């Protein structure tokens, strides 16, 4: 249900405005209304936007700077935020927080300088080592290729060599280099090349030392990458340099591990402080951002907003205790201004079981204030639709267990926590419908119990436990054989589901004193029921003619009422809405696809293991597990998506009015962001 909200205005003396903002921030229940737009439209302009402290922009800049420094530090140290003790974070938050912004900034700066002092050297050394490692790793394969050639050159006293690295696609340039260097050296040169990896080729140019300068100049002009070793290795013979490179590559990981150890000690020492600082800065900046949304006159400040009705008294008491009659809280009667009700932010308060189903509002806006919250429709029908479509005891058991694990394991992550709970409830419904269809991993159980028997020519026959083949109601309900019956059940479920939505639509109209809206929705409901009463005559031989005639009259009457309520659009909506009923056929269609796939998995596995050979049984078991596994994965996604669609399009589409705003109170994070 939608929480009852109160519109409030808080007025007080201007000189205590910022202190009052702090009390409101502490209470954390006021959804602030931005008064700046209203002030802009006012005539006379005695009221203006509240101005911040003259030093506020300076504070804001410093806090933003601190926020980015703290953020960098958190990224560098990577504390495990989820495992932090929130009580410790809250204590640290209180130690950093101060009503005086300068004091708070000084405390955070002091803490940051401590962290920097303890981490700077280690972090810099770590970064240097990582750069060195990546350079050496680049050199190593090149040098390994060039080394044997260079060793031969080093034995020739008057010869010099230069190592080059070239992209493989430009390898042809080596011929050109060979020709040109030959011209420079009078033919006393040779170029030897070898591929390093898929992208690069290493080459060694060997030439008479006498032409060293000219060759260097030529290569510089040609913009060819020469392999330049770190300065300490550059002057050494290549085999010595290579040995050193290998030794460094072996040493660096151990050094890095040592540094990581040091950093994790620092992380442990400062993670609580850093997270608390991040939260405190966030809250302070949020409070500063809120100030321009308030109004002021020469003498007083004005803060307006909404809060849950039950929070009005505590807020009044907190303000009264601190400021006496210098600050006054007034509750405004929004019913006097209809447009105010539309602006009211919406908060939901549902039973804990239903609350998990508020996940639907991750896909849609909240319902408008003053209308009915349809979460309960979703909580009842969504898992039921899911179970109706999947309908297999084995699958239901697996889905239920997986859902419960997800729900418990990710209890801190709202989406996973909610989805896990819904999966668990959906799994329970799946088991229920699985029992109705007598399906356990497809027809496996029914065959084992002898309910399904296969004749010599391969045709399956169902021996019903209750009823016979010709009975309307029989057990088990075979989805393949009883397709027409199940189709009818789907249409009836659709009628109930859409009907509930339309009844909500009628109630919304009554709550809003909008008689035409109620007539439009009521008319559509009559068309739906009437059409079903007429259709029933074609499917059920015993259906009385008078009931079909009454249905026809109801449908026509409903069409007229919908047209009176919603005009031409209402009449069209009534006809299209009745057509939406057939969309519920997906409930059986998707279920049928699932059961056919499960039976195929069983048939294949059975065929594989038929000969009794061990490898046949193993292959059969693998096929069984893989196909049923795939069917379960599809069975989780497809029914969820179609269940959501039936709610958002077919049912909610008939009555749902979205809210403009969600209730987002102006509150401190209190140690958690």
């Amino acid at each position: 249900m939608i929480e009852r909200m109160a519109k409030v205005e808080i007025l007080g003396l201007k000189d205590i405005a910022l202190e009052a903002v702090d009390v409101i921030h502490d209470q954390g229940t006021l959804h602030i209304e931005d008064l700046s737009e209203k002030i802009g439209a006012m005539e006379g302009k005695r009221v203006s936007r509240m101005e911040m402290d003259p030093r506020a922009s300076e504070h804001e800049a410093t806090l933003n700077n601190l926020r980015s420094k703290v953020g960098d530090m958190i990224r560098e140290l990577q504390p495990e935020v989820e495992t932090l003790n929130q009580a410790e974070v809250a204590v640290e938050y209180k130690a950093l927080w101060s009503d005086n912004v300068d004091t708070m900034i000084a405390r955070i700066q002091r803490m940051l300088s401590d962290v920097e002092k303890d981490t700077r050297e280690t972090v810099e050394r770590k970064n240097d080592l990582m750069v060195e490692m990546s350079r050496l790793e680049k050199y190593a394969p090149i040098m390994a290729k060039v080394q044997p050639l260079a060793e031969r050159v080093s034995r020739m006293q008057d010869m010099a060599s230069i190592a080059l690295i070239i992209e493989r696609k430009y390898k042809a340039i080596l011929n050109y280099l060979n020709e040109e260097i030959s011209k420079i050296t009078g033919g006393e040169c040779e170029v030897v090349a070898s591929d390093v990896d898929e992208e690069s080729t290493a080459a060694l140019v060997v030439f008479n030392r006498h032409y060293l300068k000219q060759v260097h100049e030529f290569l510089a002009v040609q913009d060819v990458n020469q392999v330049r070793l770190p300065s300490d290795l550059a002057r050494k013979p290549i085999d010595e340099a290579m040995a050193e490179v290998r030794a460094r590559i072996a040493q660096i990981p151990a050094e890095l591990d040592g540094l990581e150890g040091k950093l994790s000690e620092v992380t442990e020492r400062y993670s609580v402080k850093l997270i608390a600082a991040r939260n405190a800065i966030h809250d302070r900046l949020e409070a500063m951002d809120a100030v321009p949304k308030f109004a002021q006159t020469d003498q007083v400040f004005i803060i307006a907003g909404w809060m849950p009705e039950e929070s009005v008294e505590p807020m009044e008491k907190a303000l009264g205790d601190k400021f006496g009659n210098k600050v006054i809280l007034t509750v405004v009667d929004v019913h006097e201004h209809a447009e105010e009700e539309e602006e009211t932010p919406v908060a939901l308060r549902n039973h804990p079981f239903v609350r998990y189903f508020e996940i639907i509002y991750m896909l849609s806006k909240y319902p408008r204030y003053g209308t009915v919250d349809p979460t309960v429709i979703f909580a009842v029908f969504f898992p039921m639709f899911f179970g109706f479509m999947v309908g297999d005891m084995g699958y239901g058991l697996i889905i239920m267990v997986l859902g419960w694990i997800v729900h418990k394991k990710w209890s801190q992550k709202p989406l996973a926590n909610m989805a896990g709970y819904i999966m668990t409830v959906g799994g329970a419904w799946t088991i229920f419908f699985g029992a109705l269809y007598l399906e356990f991993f497809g027809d496996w159980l029914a065959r084992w119990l002898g309910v399904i028997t296969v004749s010599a020519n391969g045709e399956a026959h169902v021996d019903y436990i209750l009823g016979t083949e010709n009975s309307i109601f029989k057990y088990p309900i075979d989805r393949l054989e009883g397709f027409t019956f199940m189709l009818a059940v789907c249409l009836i479920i659709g009628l109930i589901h859409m009907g509930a939505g339309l009844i909500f639509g009628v109630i919304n109209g009554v709550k809003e004193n909008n008689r035409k809206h109620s007539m439009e929705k009521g008319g559509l409901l009559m068309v739906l029921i009437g059409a079903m009463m007429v259709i029933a005559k074609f499917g059920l031989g015993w259906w009385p003619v008078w009931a079909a005639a009454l249905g026809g009259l109801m449908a026509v009457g409903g069409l007229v009422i919908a047209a009176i309520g919603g005009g031409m659009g209402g009449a069209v909506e009534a006809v299209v809405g009745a057509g939406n009923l057939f969309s519920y056929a997906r409930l059986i269609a998707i279920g049928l696809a699932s059961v056919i796939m499960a039976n195929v998995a069983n048939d294949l596995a059975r065929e594989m293991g038929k000969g009794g050979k061990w490898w046949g049984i193993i292959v059969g078991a693998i096929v069984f597990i893989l196909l049923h596994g795939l069917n379960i994965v599809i069975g989780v996604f497809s029914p969820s998506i179609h269940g959501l669609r039936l709610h958002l399009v077919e049912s909610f589409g008939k009555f749902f009015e979205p809210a403009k705003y969600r209730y987002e109170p102006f509150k401190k994070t209190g140690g958690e962001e």
Partner: protein
Amino acid sequence: MESAVKVGLIAISAALAIGLSAIATALAQSRIGAAMAGAVAERPELVGSAIIMVAIPETMVILGFVVAFLITALKSAE
């Protein structure tokens, strides 16, 4: 012979019912999918709505499947 032709025609009708509706769904989903992929790249919070939007044209193939199943039921009713 006549009965075999009848069975064949029933099978072709069922195949057309599901095949054509599947093609129509695929065409619609390809367009919606491309548009929603673009929208999600710009605004990742739309991913939930994108899934629902892509699922909307599936009504066609689902109804095609239902009709195909009802057509095949004609064969077993004989």
